[in-house]
């Protein structure tokens, strides 16, 4: 689902973080789909060295994944391995969410964990040795870092699935019969339904992923990892050249520490954000009690979730929900009856499915309602209350309705309804169909409908556009007051202080809006 402004926003993020050169390579991959290094060079007109370095940065930061395809026979050179690079759009978006990830972490873990992940987010990928060196260099007095405690921290984070081993550097993608190239990027919905990966991007990520047990493991036992060593050495990315000189070391454990590369597991964080989003949504609609119950249900079932976009949680009985509720401080004052009543409330809104005494969270429903509300709020603000009612009618019915019927049901004046409908249609919020009836006298009816799939894509593009605009405005405002911001505090007096206060407020407002808008992007893109 790569839209025009999705691409622009991603390129902007990369430009901000890594400069124009890397951004140019990134944009080329975003627009053209997977390419070989030769082709990147050709399209960007950069030197071989520049392209190589840009790709290395992007790989190191988990924004690009390399893969190999085997060219089929029949060409002059015979079958030939061919390395291509595919950009990971989602991971670029995650770059603006690092602060959110760290907040989650600080709520669940101690400072050492936060610092470790901070290092991983900053550098993209690190070995245990590198993590140790990094911790050492920022070591404060009286707060010594030792390798064992660092390893323990890492194990904790890996077990919680917030950190993972890096994927294979260059998996082999089996040739597929379908045509290749960017045209395939969008994939068809039907392909998704039967469980096939949708895009090349997804196929490559899938192919590169280590096996579950491997992905979330830290080898600490020296004896047992002899066989592991070989695999691990394959795991090193092209960006990590330092493995060779350590392989001869006697102790495999040490070798592992220097060769196995770890990175933050974005999926783990996004899953957590999704849960948080659901809890917040429930709290806004119902009350703290219902939010506590949902939160307890999530706590009890999250380990069974295999992917981010889980539809339903595994079913739980009332007693196991209650058991989980009273584990938390907030839930301790809830009685069994209170929990039961909250479950009924959750059921009324279809947030939870109840069947034969077991309860399961309907993630899709919660997210769908949250998405609806976001779009409805835009409609209400941009087009007014009548439009809001009309939009809700069409969105709820999900089918074509005729102008007159719409105006009757929504109590909108007959002469106003077509105007509102036309405006919504023109801006891409509705679909229109003309129906010509030929009878005694020919008459024409207009039918209207909300197509969620098309509209959601449109709204998401507007969100990316807005995110880009916010970011551009922040840089513009800060750039305008650059001198003032560099002034020492005691030199800011009178009007200068006023201007300083203004820019501070502007910055806070813009940056908090960026965070909030990103929540909406998460809701539409990632959840």
């Amino acid at each position, binding site marked *: 689902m790569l839209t025009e402004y999705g691409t622009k926003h991603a390129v902007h993020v990369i430009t901000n973080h890594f400069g124009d050169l890397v951004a140019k390579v990134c944009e080329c991959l975003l627009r053209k789909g997977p390419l070989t290094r030769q082709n990147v060079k050709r399209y960007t007109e950069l030197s071989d060295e520049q392209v190589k370095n840009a790709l290395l940065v992007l790989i190191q930061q988990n924004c690009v994944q390399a893969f190999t395809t085997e060219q089929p026979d029949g060409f002059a050179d015979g079958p030939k391995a061919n390395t291509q690079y595919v950009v990971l759009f989602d991971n670029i978006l995650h770059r603006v969410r690092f602060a959110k990830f760290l907040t989650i972490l600080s709520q669940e873990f101690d400072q050492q964990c936060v610092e470790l992940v901070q290092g991983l987010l900053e550098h993209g990928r690190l070995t245990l040795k590198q993590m140790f060196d990094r911790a050492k260099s920022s070591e404060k007095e009286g707060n010594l870092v030792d390798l064992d405690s660092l390893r323990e921290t890492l194990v904790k984070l890996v077990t919680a699935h917030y950190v993972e081993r890096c994927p294979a550097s260059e998996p082999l993608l089996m040739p597929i019969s379908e045509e290749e190239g960017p045209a395939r990027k969008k994939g068809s919905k039907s392909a998704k339904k039967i469980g096939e990966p949708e895009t090349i991007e997804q196929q490559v990520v899938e192919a590169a992923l280590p096996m579950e047990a491997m992905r979330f493991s830290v080898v600490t036992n020296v004896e047992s990892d002899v066989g592991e060593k070989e695999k691990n050495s394959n795991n090193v990315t092209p960006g990590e050249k330092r493995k060779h000189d350590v392989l001869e070391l006697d102790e495999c454990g040490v070798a592992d520490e220097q060769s196995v590369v770890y990175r933050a597991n974005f999926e783990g964080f996004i899953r957590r954000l999704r849960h948080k989003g659901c809890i917040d949504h429930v709290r806004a609609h119902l009350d703290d009690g219902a939010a506590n119950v949902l939160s307890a249900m999530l706590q009890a079932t999250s380990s069974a979730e295999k992917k981010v976009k889980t539809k339903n949680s595994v079913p739980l009985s009332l007693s196991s929900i209650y058991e989980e509720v009273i584990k938390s401080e907030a839930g301790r004052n809830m009685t069994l009856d209170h929990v039961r009543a909250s479950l009924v409330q959750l059921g009324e809104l279809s947030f939870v499915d109840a069947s034969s005494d077991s309860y399961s969270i309907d993630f899709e429903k919660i997210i769908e309602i949250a998405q609806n509300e976001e*779009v*409805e709020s835009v409609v209400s603000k*941009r087009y007014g209350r009548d439009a809001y009612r009309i939009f809700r009618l069409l969105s709820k019915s999900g089918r074509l309705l005729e102008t007159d019927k719409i105006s009757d*049901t929504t109590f909108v004046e007959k002469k106003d309804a077509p105007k509102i409908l036309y405006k919504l249609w023109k801006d891409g919020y509705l679909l229109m169909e003309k129906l010509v009836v030929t009878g005694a006298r020919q008459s024409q009816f207009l039918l209207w409908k909300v197509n969620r799939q098309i509209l959601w894509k449109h709204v998401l593009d507007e*969100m990316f556009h807005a995110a880009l605009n916010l970011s551009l405005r922040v840089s513009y405002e800060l750039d305008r007051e650059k001198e003032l911001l560099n002034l020492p505090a005691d030199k800011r007096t009178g009007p200068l202080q006023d201007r300083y*206060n203004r820019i501070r407020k*502007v910055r806070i407002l813009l940056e908090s*809006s960026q965070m909030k808008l990103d*929540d909406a992007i998460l809701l539409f893109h990632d959840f």
Partner: protein
Amino acid sequence: MSKRKRPDSNAPSDSLTDHERLIYDVIRSKQDMGIWTRDMKRELRVNLPDNIVTKSIKSLQNKSLIKEVVNIHSKGKKHLMAVEFEPSKEISGGAWYSEGSLDTEFIKVVKSQCLKQIIKLKVATLEGISDSIKRSGAFKVDLTKQQIEEIVRALVLDNQIMEVKSNGSGEFTNIPVGKVCYKNVSKGGGGGEPKTGSLASIPCGVCPQINICKPDGVISPKTCVYYTKWLDF
């Protein structure tokens, strides 16, 4: 038809000219649907000059045989109907229309009454709301169940109430299982005013020019007046 025609044709319609008679018959044959002047002319079997038609219509109106009614679909057009008929729902717009316009005041009152009863009853079926309103004596006229239903549907679209199905226990004790009920939207809806979403709370979310806004365009986030206003501290 013929039964009603007799007694009427005693007095004024006896003294009609031939043209008037022709026009009157066409209008009257349309009963409670009435007819637009232009359409009527087309239906006349003979071709009458415009001035004769206009004169005849005037005369028929003076004799109180026909009247002009408002057609909600085309308010500007002259719509004629025989006096003994009341405009049908298609022409008048139904109970919610008064003189061709949506009776917004009336609708508002009925809406707030329905909402009041739903809040009072906590959970209510359509019948429950209808009875409760009748008992309250808020309206001189009786509202039909269909009217209440239309208003309740609009309240759902307003996000002031929500539709739920009875499960037969708790607050639904007196309501059969599976029956559709209505409840006040407790939170989030905030009196029907939708919660402002993330996109809607920044200028771009409600910007009418978003489609022509480009980073370096004539309209750009750097020069945007909506932004300037928003950031005016």
